[in-house]
């Protein structure tokens, strides 16, 4: 009976992983051909010219995602701390409700909302607006992860800190949060991976850019946007670049998450679970 | 709770009572031997001495085991202490019976003579004290134990009287010195028995009340 269960579990795992592997393999097959250093470091060239690339899109995504993290992570952790440590009561119910609603908002609606609130006011597209949209989308995931990981820290750890005469807020920040950090970082990475591939919100906010741009107040290229642009174009050359871009996007996301995991695991003390 | 422990305590009490019975019987036999001049009764006392010693050892071992295994506290601890001490006192009572029997053997070998010493009465009082102390032990009655303490004075007085009487006899009739001496020693042994009864009574009071009345005059105990 045990072996049957093990076999079943193995089969389920395979079934789950299969589409992932299939996608990855397909991307490699379709896109590897267009990969080159020029592709990775150059900005797009008009159709017909060779040597075009997604370098500016990679840079732009990095900037936009950086802004998103700056917005989403502190707010998300803050909300999570609020819910876990000072929970109970009407405020918590409200915060949780808002977070759930935010989670359910379609990404394109988020984009339109930021368009109306920010882009229209400023009268221009910008990486800031794009970062804002993505940042807001990160909040619910980070909040949920923070709250759950904080609640998992045993009460005895908190009491130990309080018993030493450490103030309550300090206990939360330096002890409880520090203990829960690995899980919180996982939550942040989940949120990051989700928004890193979002295209729709960026359509009306960052808008995209054919050229290199480091000014956050100007329209900025982003990798998903660029892939989208190439994909819906009628040009074969651009189609191949779209495949390659998709491959690069996945590799970059997976790579970033892996890097963060490796860096933070080096900081964890030996001997903890 | 602790039924097993309670049963052990009850069993210990029972064994002490049985041993007390043997000690009382020994005194009784020795005094009857004195009255009736029967050497067989003395032999019985000598034989039963072994049984008394065995019983003392057994009670000590049981008490030690209970102390080690059950970690008794408060009243239980005081009870076991009372058992151990009374155990020793009763064994000494057995020894006193042997001493009396030895004196009686000598008296039987000597010519019979009437002396001014009411040994049977003194023996009756001492034996009664032992009995009362043990009854106080059985029922955990501190009042009864206190009465035993009061009776000790009477026995002490009787011992003193016999001492003076025998002293007078030895001066007036040197031929009777051996008998007088033996009689005096028997009285002394009986006085010791009364002392042991007093010790047992004091142990009962400490067990029941947690009040240490040893070496204090009764008036100070209040």
């Amino acid at each position, binding site marked *: 009976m045990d072996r049957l269960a093990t076999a079943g579990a193995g089969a389920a795992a395979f079934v789950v992983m299969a589409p992932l592997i299939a996608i990855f393999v397909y991307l490699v097959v379709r896109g590897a051909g267009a990969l080159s250093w020029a592709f990775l470091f150059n900005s797009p060239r008009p159709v017909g010219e060779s040597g075009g690339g997604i370098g500016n899109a990679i840079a732009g995504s990095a900037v936009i995602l950086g802004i998103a993290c700056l917005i989403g992570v502190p707010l998300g952790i803050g909300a999570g701390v609020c819910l876990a440590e000072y929970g109970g009561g009407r405020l918590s119910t409200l915060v949780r409700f808002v977070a759930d609603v935010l989670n359910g908002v379609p990404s394109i609606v988020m984009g339109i909302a930021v368009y109306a609130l920010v882009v229209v006011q400023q009268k221009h597209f910008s990486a800031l607006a794009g970062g804002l949209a993505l940042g807001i989308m990160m909040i619910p995931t980070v909040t949920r992860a923070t709250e759950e990981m904080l609640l998992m820290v045993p009460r005895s750890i908190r*009491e130990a800190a309080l*018993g030493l005469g450490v103030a309550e807020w300090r206990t939360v920040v330096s002890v409880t949060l520090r203990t829960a950090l690995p899980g919180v970082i996982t939550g942040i990475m989940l949120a990051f991976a989700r928004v890193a591939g979002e295209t729709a919100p960026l359509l009306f906010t960052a808008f995209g850019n054919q050229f290199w741009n480091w000014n956050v107040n100007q329209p900025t290229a982003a990798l998903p946007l660029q892939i989208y642009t190439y994909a819906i174009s009628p040009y074969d050359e651009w189609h191949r670049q779209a495949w390659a871009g998709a491959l690069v996007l996945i590799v970059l996301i997976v790579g970033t998450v892996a890097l963060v995991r490796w860096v933070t695991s080096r900081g964890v003390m*030996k001997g903890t679970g | 709770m602790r039924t097993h422990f309670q049963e052990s305590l009850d069993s210990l009490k029972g064994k002490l009572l049985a041993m007390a019975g043997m000690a009382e019987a020994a005194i009784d036999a020795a005094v009857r031997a004195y009255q009736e001049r029967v050497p067989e009764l003395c032999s019985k006392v000598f034989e039963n001495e072994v049984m008394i010693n065995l019983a003392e050892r057994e009670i000590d071992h049981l008490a030690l085991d209970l102390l080690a295994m059950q970690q008794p506290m408060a009243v239980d601890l*005081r009870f076991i202490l009372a058992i151990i001490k009374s155990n020793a006192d009763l064994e000494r009572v057995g020894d006193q019976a042997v001493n009396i029997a030895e004196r009686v053997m000598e008296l039987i070998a000597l010519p019979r003579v009437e002396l001014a010493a009411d040994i049977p009465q003194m023996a009756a009082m001492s034996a009664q004290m032992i009995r009362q102390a043990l009854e106080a032990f059985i029922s955990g009655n501190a009042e009864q134990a206190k009465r035993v303490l009061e009776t000790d004075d009477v026995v002490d007085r009787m011992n003193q009287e016999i001492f003076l009487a025998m002293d007078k006899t030895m001066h007036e009739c040197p031929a009777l010195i051996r008998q007088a001496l033996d009689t005096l020693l028997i009285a002394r042994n009986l006085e010791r028995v009364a002392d042991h009864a007093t010790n047992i009574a004091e142990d009962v009071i400490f067990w029941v009340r947690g009040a240490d009345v040893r070496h204090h005059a009764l008036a100070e105990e209040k």
Partner: protein
Amino acid sequence: MGMSLSVRQLNAWFGRRQALDDITMEIPANQVTAIIGPSGCGKSTFVRCLNRMHETVPEARVEGSVIIGSRNIYGNGVSPVEVRRRVGMVFQKPNPFPAMSIYDNVAAGLKLNGFHKRRELDEVVEHALRMAALWDEVKDQLKKQSGASLSGGQQQRLCIARALAVQPEVLLMDEPASALDPISTSKIEELIFQLKAQYTIVIVTHNMQQAARVADGTGFFLLGKLIEYDATEKIFTTPVDKRTEDYVTGRFG
């Protein structure tokens, strides 16, 4: 040096349920005072009132006064955080901070309160670990090993060192050895005996033999009330109250 504690008419509630009823007792300085009683009698609650930890539970309430040295810790304007620096606590289940090294654990009380001078921290950590009889076992692994990687007995001694590092005047111990094996328990008891020269120690224990071994004075609690409080040997040989006697002889509890 340790301080004496004077508890006057202490009452405590969890919401509507009263957990402590009018407790008054004098706890002498530089002695070990044990608090015994059956489960639910309020002994843990009592001890947690001595360092104002009781009120960290939602809907918990305290009335009455606890005077340590000459100050009432429940007086107006007294900060609970400040109280907890003067009254340390060691809990039943060892609770070292898992995300910190041994060194950081011991130094936590100081570092988290803003004290960062390196050399002095080193001295304090070593001194505290020596007092907790743990220094020799961990001195080579101070910064590399996490607090949670030690054995149960060592973890508890680490928690003791951590509490001692902030130099409290009173040390509260809530069943400190109940989760430990006999040898660790014996080490902790030996430690308590040595610590009382410098600290006033209040220890909650459900193990009467432990109270008998380590405590100078013992208080018996039942249903939130203090039934009897006296020298330890008196409580265990000639207690006055029948309820105390029934408890120490194991007739109930």
